[in-house]
């Protein structure tokens, strides 16, 4: 790498080209976010250049908007419940993929991971048909079941990746020292997978908060936040949406920073996101 950087003239030119490209891509990635935030303070509403009459009005309106906050509460309920389901079944699924042999294991692995790569519409519709066939009324519960099921894949990939780094001799040592399987699971396996589990939980939480394709088909009377926003978008553009999005973005940033801190306290930088996409594609293949 050093050699490449310190090389001859063409290298330097190539390097400059790469830097410009990188700046351009970052601009492209952040342009909508910047616009979103700026226009949440724009007195004239969304659109129109340049923005003028900076105001906090839209935030004031937002805070008095009951339905939005109801939907935020619904989304939080869904996200936490989905997280519980996904972890409760995703962690054992990862353990099973790692250390049990059973007929249909290959199919099971692909099936668990499929919702991650499959367009949400297919998962959503197939669950819709299931609920219709067994006469379950659509409600937040059906959304929770949908999110929980789809996001088992996240828990499984993350924890499975963690298990690959876990030295199995540690669990053997625990059994050897007299702890049974249950004690070993809680005292050795879980603490060692702590980072993977927290990472998975955070990821599941955010993905669920943001999820719309599956929810779209499983929604009952109560809206989640994305569906509430969706409903309003169909009626027209309003800076209130910019405002709520800005707030969520700030919260997400705080979560990232928190997560980063945890990481640094933990074990360097394993990269959850990269692992996730990589493992997902690989997992839908046979390598997991």
């Amino acid at each position, binding site marked *: 790498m050093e050699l490449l950087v310190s090389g001859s003239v063409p290298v330097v030119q190539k390097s400059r080209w790469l830097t410009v490209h990188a700046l351009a891509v970052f601009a492209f990635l952040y342009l909508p976010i910047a616009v979103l935030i700026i226009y949440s303070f724009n007195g004239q509403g969304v659109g129109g250049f340049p923005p003028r009459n900076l105001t906090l009005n839209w935030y004031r309106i937002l805070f008095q908007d009951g339905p939005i906050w109801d939907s935020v509460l619904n989304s939080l309920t869904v996200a936490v419940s989905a997280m519980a389901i996904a972890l409760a079944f995703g962690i054992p699924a990862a353990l099973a993929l790692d250390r049990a042999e059973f007929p249909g294991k290959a199919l099971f692995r692909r099936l668990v991971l499929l919702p991650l790569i499959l367009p949400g519409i297919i998962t959503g519709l197939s669950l819709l048909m299931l609920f219709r066939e067994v006469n379950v009324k659509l409600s937040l519960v059906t959304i929770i079941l949908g999110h929980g099921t789809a996001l088992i894949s996240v828990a499984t990939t993350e924890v499975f990746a963690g298990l690959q780094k876990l030295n199995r001799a540690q669990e053997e040592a625990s*059994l*050897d*020292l007299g702890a049974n399987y249950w004690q070993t699971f809680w005292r050795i396996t879980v*603490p060692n997978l702590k980072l993977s589990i927290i990472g998975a939980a955070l990821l599941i939480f955010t993905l669920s908060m943001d999820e719309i394709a599956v929810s779209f088909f499983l929604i009952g009377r109560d809206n989640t936040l994305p569906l509430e926003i969706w409903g309003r978008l169909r009626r027209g553009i309003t800076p209130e949406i910019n405002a709520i999005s800005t707030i969520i973005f700030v919260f997400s940033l705080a979560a990232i920073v928190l997560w980063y801190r945890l990481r640094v306290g933990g074990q360097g930088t394993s990269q959850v996101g990269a692992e996730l996409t990589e493992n997902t594609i690989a997992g839908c293949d046979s390598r997991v």
Partner: protein
Amino acid sequence: MATTFDPAFTNSTQTNAQPLLSLRAVAKHFGKNIVLRDISLEIAEGEFLTVLGESGSGKTTLLRILAGFEQATAGEVWMAGERLDTQPPYRRRVNTVFQHYALFPHMTVEENVAYGLRIAKRPSSEIESRVSDALAKVKMSAFARAKPSKISGGQQQRVALARALVNRPRLLLLDEPLSALDANLRRQMQGELKALQREVGITFIFVTHDQEEAMVMSDRIALLRSGELEQVASPREIYSRPATAYTAQFIGHTNLLKADVRNGVATSGALSWPTTAPAGAGLFSLRPECIRVADSSAPPSETSLPTTVPATVRLRAKLRDQVFHGANELLRVECADGQVLTLRTSTRPAIDGNGELELEFSPADAVLVRPSEERA
């Protein structure tokens, strides 16, 4: 030390009629792959037994069967009159020192050592005193609050030892515990480990691929080859009386002589020596240090006493090459018939004008061994 470890087990060297551990025709298959076959072995209370073998010989699998991490495909294991192999690992009074120690990274040294006692729900005052005694015994008291990642390999090794011994197991299994250490530390730990074993009197089963380590530490060596026991004997016996060609070659160096035995005389090319081996083809192991450079001033013994068994056999050989090893030198010589022998000598040999040497060995040092067929 009696405060830390059960006095019942401190009575070390005696070998009772009743062995502590007995393996009866133990076998292990992984699918079609046979890893262990027909292992039968008895181990006495307080014994230091080394299971020696190359990688892939099945020694680690054998250890894992004793610890309970693998199920034997056939056979039984008994410990102190009870069936052991049907018990889950956490019910066995057997503890293990793992190859790379397997210390729990999220616990301090102290918590690691206390783990087994906490699981056994011992009162906290007892845990405290036993842990501190155990740490003192391995000279790690100063590091009680450290995380395993902050201490050196040798220190981790001591902690692993304390973590296992603090539970007062009847049997301690050690899976190549010294392999990760550098040579000097390793030699030091060999001595400490042996001394510790004498002191606590617990039965040790030590797995290694290093024959020198096995020789230094063990009461007995069980040599494993491709899943079968080749020979079980004390280091001295296994070295001087190897049962098979494989044993003779694996433990130390040796010269293997293919000989034809007739009328109490073995003949291998130009060499011949008296033997008690039965007539027919025979394979003999002759250790390099058993071949000496002859004192050329003394006359060959057979001229003076032709009728009795000669004390030494003499031969002439050409020096092929010579490797300096510090305390001694390894010589490779070629006999008149082309047979190449290796010998070890502590003196620079006198070589005559033809580049030849006068050598001798005692016929008793040529040990008849069973040939070992090639195995996968």
